[in-house]
Each structure stands twice: as structure tokens, then as C-alpha cells.
């Protein structure tokens, strides 16, 4: 990133046709490595460059590629004046040092070397010149040909007059030797030169002046505007027309070339921005890149607003507020997604940042100067840059989402494999112990009565331990937060049936009565988890009430809920414990000898809550405890009713 780097040590290398270009590049890479500052290598395609032999130009491209591999940011620019382009590039990218090869020996006193020109035109930039060595490259003669860079303003007109005067003076001594037709040619040449150099209006001036000068100084009678021979009028006419047309054409060409150059620069800026955006890793960087681009192409300050999690706009990370930027106005453009066009609100232009899938924010611009008119070319440029910024923001957004979900999946996978490893390693030995104890009691020859009793005791204890391990593992799973119930439409009857089967022996000495209405709607629950809920509740009732206690299970439909109550007529819950019962590692009676960690009810609550329901414990007025569950009723799926027909009659014997 050139943007955040200190500009002091940042280097610029211009790769040109000079002989020491490779040394310059390598030197720059070395220096950049020492200082840690970024460096850029550029090739400036001047018209002179195109005149170079192909081999030389290929070589230049290779050197640029070398620079890129060595870590430079590279670019190919074009312009008439390599020196001006290089200086502009250095300023734009805040590169403080220019590293150049030594200039060639001068051939003529007015020929200035590249380095010399640089030094003259950019006294604020540091200039490092490399020591010379080795070869000299022959420069193609056309390399001197330049399309003039053209001055501007009023100074063009006196210069035009001066040129015409010069041509007149030069032609004067030749008057005797040259045909008048050839002198006309000299004037036409002057017009073309002026058109190339100064543009349209001076060319028109030159055309008229030339005709006048020609008439005055060369057409007899000389030194008057009178013309004796009428045929000179044709000469004047043709001369004027040719001068005007040639001048127009040349000036038009020059204008087009300038426009093309400007467009090329904008495209390059756009290209650079999109390349930088492609590499941006944070919103802050995107904001910085966008701001830099707009500053550079539109001479305006920009800020970017992005939506927060509630959809309200805030200034994006790294963008500072601009005077006159109104978040309310930005919000309305963001919400309606309307392009604000060229309308400005309090001097600020708002552009929505629209990516294919969503609106990413709003770009707000304010002119740096007082007067600011956006040209026809700048507006589409702004639109394009807004789209690029939006795409970059969206890419960042999705990258973020993808990274998050991948991390979640990864950690979930890890937790699950850890849990199943623990569960496997704990259960296998427990299975073996219980199994061996069972096998002992079946051994041949048979064991004594008391030995068989011991074997059974071992098995029962292992069974308890297995239950506790299961509870702990379940709790761990739920604690990890991502217990997602696998919901299916299920009858409560079947769930209670499973729980009853699971509790089997435990409930043998209790009287359980289950009373479920036949028309109770289906429940959308995870069968396995709900089975745990009722087994735990029934187990709880069995463990904490004396034998012979009556346990009743009832259910009914309530406004949007299914209520299920498991009640007993045992000793009830100790006062004040009703809610604490559902906390982890809590047991109703501390001195109790009943085995367990007190996890059963915590698991019940966790499962019920993950299903969107509630569970409450209370003492009944008539004595005993009562657990009351509420589960959301939902909308059971439609069920194709079977016509009430008897199997025997409809399908035959």
C-alpha cells in the first residue's frame, strides 16, 4: 500500500531506454529492502519510445517484469513528456525519491538529460543518480520527434505573431530566389506548426496573419495590401482555406490526443483503484483507497458511510466526517437505493454503493475548491468507482461471513469429535465391566447366592455410572450451545411410551397413570431429546418419592401451547427449592443418599427451552410435587384422512 507508507523513503524508478535500467531497478530493490519502504517502477510510453526498435521495447518490458518480481508496484503510463509524467506519478503516489541512471553525454547544448530535467522541474523530490558503467544504446533518430506539449493562455497569441514575423523575415531574403508559391508553403508550414503547438484559435490567427503578411511583403506591389494581378486573390483564398483547414485538423488531432491521454490517465487511476481494492483486507483500507481515488480524479474529498447491524448508517472505519455531510440524507438515499444523480444536498453529492446482492453504504463527496462542476466524464467515473467500492465492501462482507461460518463449523466438528471420543472411551470399559459382571452370574459351575448378588451389585452400580456419564456428556453438549433439535412431528403418547420403557424397572414400585387425550395434536419436537425430558422427570419422581407413590401424567391443549403435567403425591419439593431445582449440580435434599449429580432437571430445562417451551416445578395444594411443561403447539402438517373403511371389505379376502 502506498497510501499508508511514509513517503520519505518511498522510491520511484523510471525504466527507460537507457543502458543502465536493469542496474537501476536492482539498486532500487536493494535500497527498498534496506529501508523497508515501498517502491514503484514505471515505464513511460512517449512517442519517442514507439520509435525504438522492438527488441529494446521488449527488454524494457522484461525489466518492468523484473521490478514487479522484486516487489515493486509497476505501471505503464503514457505521455508526451516523460519527465512531467514521472513527476506527476511521484507526487500522486507520494514517492519522495527518484532513482535514475546517469544522463547520456550531451550532444548539443540545449539537449537536457532526463535527470537534469527532473532536477529542474521538481526541486522538492530527492534525486539519486546511479554511477555510470558499460554500454551505450544507440538512440533511433526519430526519438527526438516530439508532439509538442503546448502552452496555454494569452501567451500563445504573441508567440503566434512572433512566428509569423520570423517566417516573414526568413523568407524576405529568399524573395528574389524563390517562387512565390514556395513562400506560401513556408507560411503554411508556420500555420501547421502553430496549430500543433498552440491549438485552434492561434492557428486561425496565424492563417490570417500569414495571408496578410504574404500579401503585404511578397505580392507585388510590395509593402501594400493592394494586388495588381487578380490571380493572387485565388492564391490568398486557397492559402487561407488551406491554412484554416490544416490548422483545424492539426489542432483537432492535438485535442483528441490530449483527451485520449486524459482518458487513459483516468482509466489507469481506475485500474489502480480496482487493483488496490482487490487486495484490500479491511473496510479502513477500502475507504482510504476510495478517498485517494476521488481526491485524485475529481479534486473532491470523500467519505463513506456503511450500515451497522441495525441498518443505520455510520461513518465507516477510517473515514472522517466531512463538513456538510448529513447522515440523515445519506440514510434516505441508502434506504431508497435511489441514485442521487448530480443533485447535491448542501454542497455534498451522495452516491449509493450498490453491490449485486445488497446496498453496502453511501459515498459522500464534497468539492475541495469552492467551485465544482462535474464534467460529463467525471460522473460515469464516479459511478464506476462507487460500484467498485461497493463490490469490494461486499466481497469483504462475504469473506467475513465465510470465515466465521468456517470457524464455527471447525470448532463444532472438534467439539463433537472430542465428545464422541470421551463418550466412547468411557462407555467401552463400563460396558465391559457390566458385561463381565453379568457373565460371572451366569458362569458354569454356578456361583454361590451371595457371589451372584455381588455380581448384580456391580452391574447395577455400573448402570448408575453410565447414566451419570450420559448426563454429563449431554450437559456438556448443551453447554456448548449449539444443540440443534432435529424436530419432527411426533405424538406425545409415543414419547411418553419411550420414557416409560426407559425407566422400566425404576418405576416398578410406583403406580403410574398416564392420561392423554386422544385428540392431542402432534408436537414438533426432537424425539430423542424429549424422551430424555420425560425419562428424567419420571426418574426424578421415582427416586425422590417412596414406593407406592402415585405418579400421574396428563396433558391438554391451551391457547397456542400444549401443557403437560407430571405430578406425584409424594413428599413434595423442599420449600424455596422450586426454581433452584433446575440449576446444575443442585439436589433437593443435600443429605440425600440418592445417587446423581443433580443434572437431570438442568437437562430437562435446557431441552425444553431449546424447543421454545418452559418448565416449572411446584408443590401441589393437596401434597406432592408437580412439574408443569408448556410446549408451543405450532401448526401440525395436514394429514390425509383415510376413508373409514374396513380392511376386510375393501381389499377382499
Amino acid at each position, binding site marked *: 500500500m502506498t497510501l499508508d507508507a511514509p513517503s520519505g523513503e518511498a522510491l520511484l524508478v523510471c525504466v527507460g531506454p537507457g543502458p543502465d535500467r536493469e542496474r537501476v531497478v536492482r539498486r532500487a530493490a536493494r535500497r527498498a529492502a534496506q529501508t523497508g519502504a515501498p517502491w514503484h517502477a514505471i515505464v513511460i510510453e512517449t512517442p519517442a519510445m514507439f520509435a525504438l526498435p522492438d527488441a529494446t521495447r521488449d527488454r524494457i518490458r522484461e525489466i518492468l517484469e523484473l521490478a514487479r518480481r522484486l516487489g515493486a508496484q509497476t505501471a505503464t503510463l503514457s505521455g508526451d513528456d516523460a519527465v512531467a509524467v514521472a513527476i506527476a506519478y511521484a507526487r500522486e503516489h507520494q514517492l519522495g525519491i527518484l532513482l535514475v541512471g546517469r544522463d547520456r553525454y550531451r550532444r548539443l547544448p540545449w539537449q537536457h538529460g532526463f535527470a537534469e530535467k527532473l532536477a529542474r522541474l521538481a526541486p522538492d523530490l530527492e534525486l539519486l543518480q546511479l554511477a555510470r558503467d558499460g554500454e551505450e544504446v544507440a538512440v533511433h533518430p526519430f526519438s527526438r520527434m516530439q508532439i509538442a506539449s503546448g502552452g496555454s493562455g494569452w501567451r500563445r497569441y504573441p508567440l503566434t505573431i512572433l512566428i509569423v514575423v520570423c517566417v516573414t523575415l526568413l523568407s524576405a531574403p529568399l524573395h528574389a530566389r524563390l517562387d512565390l508559391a514556395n513562400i506560401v508553403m513556408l507560411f503554411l508550414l508556420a500555420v501547421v506548426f502553430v496549430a500543433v503547438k498552440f491549438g485552434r484559435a492561434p492557428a486561425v490567427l496565424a492563417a490570417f496573419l500569414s495571408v496578410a503578411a504574404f500579401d503585404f511583403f511578397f505580392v507585388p506591389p510590395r509593402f501594400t495590401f493592394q494586388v495588381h494581378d487578380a490571380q493572387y486573390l485565388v492564391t490568398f483564398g486557397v492559402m487561407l482555406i488551406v491554412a484554416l483547414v490544416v490548422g483545424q485538423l492539426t489542432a483537432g488531432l492535438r485535442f483528441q490526443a490530449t483527451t485520449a491521454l486524459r482518458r487513459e490517465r483516468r482509466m489507469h487511476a481506475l485500474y489502480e483503484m480496482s487493483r488496490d481494492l482487490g487486495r484490500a483486507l479491511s473496510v479502513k483500507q477500502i475507504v482510504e483507497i476510495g478517498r485517494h481515488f476521488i481526491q485524485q480524479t475529481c479534486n473532491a474529498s470523500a467519505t463513506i458511510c456503511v450500515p451497522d447491524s441495525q441498518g443505520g448508517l455510520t461513518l465507516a472505519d477510517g473515514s472522517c466526517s466531512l463538513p456538510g455531510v448529513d447522515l440523515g440524507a445519506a440514510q434516505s438515499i441508502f434506504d431508497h437505493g435511489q441514485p442521487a444523480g448530480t443533485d447535491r444536498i448542501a454542497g455534498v453529492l451522495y452516491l449509493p454503493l450498490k453491490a449485486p446482492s445488497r446496498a453496502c453504504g453511501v459515498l459522500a463527496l464534497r468539492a475541495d475548491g469552492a467551485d465544482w462542476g462535474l464534467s460529463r466524464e467525471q460522473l460515469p467515473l464516479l459511478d464506476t468507482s462507487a460500484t467498485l467500492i461497493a463490490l469490494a465492501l461486499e466481497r469483504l462482507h462475504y469473506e467475513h461471513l465465510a470465515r466465521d461460518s468456517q470457524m464455527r463449523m471447525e470448532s463444532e466438528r472438534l467439539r463433537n469429535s472430542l465428545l*464422541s471420543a470421551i*463418550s*466412547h472411551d468411557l*462407555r*467401552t*470399559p*463400563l*460396558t*465391559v465391566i*457390566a*458385561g*463381565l459382571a*453379568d*457373565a460371572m452370574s*451366569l*458362569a*458354569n459351575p454356578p456361583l454361590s447366592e451371595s457371589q451372584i448378588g455381588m455380581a448384580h451389585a456391580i*452391574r447395577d452400580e*455400573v*448402570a448408575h455410572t*453410565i447414566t451419570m456419564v*450420559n448426563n454429563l456428556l449431554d450437559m456438556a453438549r448443551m453447554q456448548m450451545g449449539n444443540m440443534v433439535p432435529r424436530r*419432527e*412431528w*411426533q*405424538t406425545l*403418547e*409415543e414419547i*411418553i*411410551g*419411550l420414557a*416409560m*420403557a426407559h425407566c422400566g424397572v425404576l418405576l416398578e414400585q410406583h403406580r*403410574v397413570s*398416564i392420561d*392423554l387425550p*386422544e385428540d392431542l395434536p*402432534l408436537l414438533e419436537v426432537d*424425539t*430423542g431429546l424429549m*424422551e430424555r425430558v420425560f425419562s428424567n422427570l419420571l426418574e426424578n419422581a421415582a427416586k425422590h418419592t417412596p414406593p407406592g407413590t402415585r405418579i400421574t*401424567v396428563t396433558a391438554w391443549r391451551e391457547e397456542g401451547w400444549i401443557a403437560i403435567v407430571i405430578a406425584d403425591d409424594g413428599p413434595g419439593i423442599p420449600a424455596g427449592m422450586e426454581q433452584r431445582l433446575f440449576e446444575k449440580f443442585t439436589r433437593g435434599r443435600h443429605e440425600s443418599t440418592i445417587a446423581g449429580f443433580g443434572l437431570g432437571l438442568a437437562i430437562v430445562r435446557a431441552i425444553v427451552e431449546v424447543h421454545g417451551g418452559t418448565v416449572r416445578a411446584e408443590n401441589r395444594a393437596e401434597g406432592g410435587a408437580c412439574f408443569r411443561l408448556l410446549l408451543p403447539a405450532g401448526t*401440525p*402438517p395436514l*394429514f390425509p384422512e*383415510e376413508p*373409514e*373403511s*374396513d*380392511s*376386510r371389505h*375393501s*381389499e377382499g*379376502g
Partner: protein
Amino acid sequence: MSDHTQPAMLIVMIEDEPQIRRFIRASLESEGFQIVESETGKRGLIEVGTRRPDLIILDLGLPDIDGIEVIRDVRGWSRVPILILSARDTEIDKVTALDAGADDYLTKPFGVPELLARVRALLRRAARPHAEDAPLIRFGEVEVDLVRRLVTRRGEEVHLTVIEYRLLALLIANAGRVLTHRTLLRDVWGPNQVENTHYLRVYMSYLRRKLEENPNVPKYITTESGVGYRLVVT
């Protein structure tokens, strides 16, 4: 089973945990079965191929090949009963194994009495291969005459709908085996309905209300949590 006039029943046990093999062998041998152990699936397949056992006990988590592969291989050429041993929390594995052709499963940790009961039930079923041969089926107070399509309970006729009867007939044809949700839905409602498990839940509750003494604590039409249903015939 250990009738002295007949050779002992042969069981091939494919299980990688030596301690589990040990207690299963001890328990089954004390009941008069003959046991061949195998530590790996490949070895197990060779034992099954050469010894032609009466029953296979197969652990799903084997070190070399997936237990499901063993089932598919055996089912390619034999109807020998297969009893699956599987870890908890893997209903999917159980269902896959049953759909692949296993007959029953036990979830670790399991007790020896449970194991013996399953082994006996499977061997009994194998000895009586065709349910159609016994047109009159009894469980509890219920009697089903498959020829006349007549279902009675305590001597009184029970009216079943077409689907209820089909479901019951399917359970009877596979008495003692676990039928997965998928199998039941496919065979009763058709292959397009295999996802609609709630049909099954509702019809099972209808059947239980008509046939069970206490439909809330079913004795005959039992639920295998997350897997399917089984008709328990004693």
C-alpha cells in the same frame, strides 16, 4: 437351544474390543452356544463364508472395513440373522445397518440378559422362516387370521382400516425384527412418502389404541427410538 440331540448353534462374533468379546463369549458359551471370534471385518467375512454360522454378531465400528460393508457382503449370498452392536448417539448408523439387511441391534452399553434375549429371538425367527406358514398369529389378547384378514381381541372382532391392516401385516411378517421408518413408509404408503414419518406415528397410535392393553406403555408394538418399530411376539 442347547439341546443335546442337536449340534450346538454356531455364532460368529466380529468385534474389535477384546474385553467385549470376552464377556460375550463367556455369556453365550454358558448358554451352550459355540462361538467363533474375529477381530476384523475381513477376517469375519472369511469365517462366515467357511463356517456357515447360525447367527452373526457384528460391531459397526471395526478397524478395517465399515460394518455396513460386512452386512452388504453377507446379504449378497446369505439370509443368516445379523445382530448389530453399536455405540450410542448413532441412530443413523443403526438405520443404515438395518436397511442394509441387519436383523436387530443392541446399543452399548447393553446387559447380558438383553443380549441373550435378542440372540434367542433371532434364532427362533430363523428357525421359522415363513410367517405365512402360520396363518394364525397371537400376541397378548390379540389374534390375527392372515388368511381371513380377521383381527380379534379377547374374541371380539377389531375393525382396522386398510392402512392399519397393511401396517399390522407388515409387522407380523417381520415379527421380532426392527422395521425402520423408511421401510414401513415405503411398503405401506409408497416410495414417495418415506419422509412423512408423522403418518407412521399417527397410525401406530391408532393401532396401539385398538390392540394394546395400555397404549401409553405398549407391550407388543414397541418403539425403537429414532430407528423404527418392532412387533414383540413371545
